[in-house]
Each structure stands twice: as C-alpha cells, then as structure tokens.
C-alpha cells in the first residue's frame, strides 16, 4: 500500500511535467518525480523495526546484520539526491536565460517549445 502511494507521487510529478505551461512549474514537477523515486528506493530497503546501519558502541557486526536496515539503497539514494541537485542547477540556469529572452516563464510564448 505504501508503495502505491509512492507511485501516486511519481504520477503527480509526471502529470505536472506534461500539462503545466510554466517553465519553473515543469522544473518543480521533475523535482517531485525524483522525490517519489527516492522514497520508493528507501522503502525497498526498510526492515520493520530495523535500526540505522551504524555500529554503535554495544553492538557487534553480527547483531548489526540481524537488525539493521539495508544500507545499499541508502547509498543509491544519497547519489540520486545529488544527481537531482545537479539537474535542478542546470534547469534553473536555462530558465533564467529563457526569462532574459522572452520576459516570461510561459511556454506558449516560446516558439519551439510548443510541440
């Protein structure tokens, strides 16, 4: 059920990218798609009642392996968050330049983007 909610979040982002007219709105919906995927990835690695994969004082490696949450999706999501930041920086630079050219963030004015 929780996975379905993630898919709903991704679908909302997809809807925003396709339908919205405003350039910055499209950038925001892409950010929402990527948030949905991050949550999906971490949910895959969740162990009910699991602790963080850090070896505290009193634990041994064996107890950590028994209780901890799956660390691999967390490393992947750490990378994906940074990729989304890089993508956002690039898109905002393009939006600023487009604003300089057209004076508005609206796609309908920009000739080639209508398609």
């Amino acid at each position, binding site marked *: 059920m929780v996975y379905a909610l993630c898919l709903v979040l991704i679908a909302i982002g997809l809807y925003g990218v396709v339908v919205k007219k405003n350039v910055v709105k499209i950038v925001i919906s892409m950010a929402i798609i990527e*948030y949905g995927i991050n949550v999906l990835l971490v949910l895959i690695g969740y162990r009910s009642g699991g602790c963080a994969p850090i070896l505290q004082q009193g634990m041994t490696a064996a107890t950590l392996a028994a209780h901890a949450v799956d660390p691999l999706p967390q490393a992947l999501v750490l990378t994906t968050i940074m990729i989304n930041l890089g993508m956002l920086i690039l898109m905002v*630079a393009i939006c600023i330049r487009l604003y300089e050219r057209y004076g508005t963030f609206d796609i309908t004015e920009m000739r080639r983007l209508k398609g």
Partner: protein
Amino acid sequence: MSLLVILLVLMIIGAIIAIETTNLLSSIVCVGAVGFLISIAFLFLGAPDLAITQLVVEALCLIILIRATINRDLTSVTGDREFFGLTVTVAMVLVLAIAGIKMFGEFPALGQPVMDRMANTPSAAYLAHGTEQTGAKNVVTALMLGYRNYDALGQVAILFCSVIGALAILRRPARKDQKEKDAEADAI
C-alpha cells in the same frame, strides 16, 4: 507504519498544491515542504544519513529556485486546458496505476528487505564485514567511499559538470560575433 502513511499522504497533498497554485513562489514553498516531509520520512525509515543530506539539499534547492523567480514574472498563467496533454497524461497515469497494482501484488511486503528473502546478498555482506573490512562504523559511508567509491567519483563528475554547464549557460556574451550593444562585456 501508520506514521509513514500519514507522511506520504501529506507529501501527496503538498505535491498537488505545488503543481496547481498559480503563484510561483507559493508552489516553490510547497515543494520545500514536500522535501522536508521526505526528510522526516527518511528518519523513520532508519536512514539518518539521508535525512541530513535531504534536509540540507532541500534548503539549497529552495534558495536556487527562488533565485530563478525573484522579482520576475510570478503569476503562472493557467491558460486553456490543452486537450492533447491531458489525454496523454491520463493514459500514462492509468498505465502506471494498472501496472502498479498488478505488480505490487507480487512485490514483497514492506518490512522484508532483500537480506531476509534471499541467500548471500551483497547488502548482508556489507553489514557483516563492512566495518571490519573498511574500518568505518557507519556502513553507508563505508559503502559510499569504500566499496563503491567508483560511484562517488561519477557523482562528483555530475555535480562538477552541472555547475560548469550552468556557468557556461549563464555567461554574458555567448558568441564573439554577437554585436554587444552595451559596453560592459565581461566574460566571467
């Protein structure tokens, strides 16, 4: 578990508001809210490392997004509901929903990670020998900088490339032959 569902529902509401409001600044703030809710969700899913990173990256996204929209055209025109885009989206969302429901029937339940369901998965080995092989108590750091540091190298390249690309896009005189009317032509 139920707290997770509440957080996800709040996120969905925030996402809908972020996309539908006309004022650009309020939609940016809503995206910020969704980001912070995700940071709380990461905390409950046993990923403190991600919670900190998501929180800080979220704050930075807000700053950069506001930089794009400050004292610029703040109202986004809704315009006529363009029919083609709507049908394509509805079709796409339907396909995603149907595939999701059928797929999640066979998907493992929420609480069982990969290590419980299968024998000798790498993540079980990371947990068992991670500290002992790399000496780092935080297994995620051991993973990022020890086992998979080739990924971290790729990621630094991505950040570097996107910032240099943004600098290239925002540089003032893009072409030499462009007749610059104003005298101030500095290529930073």
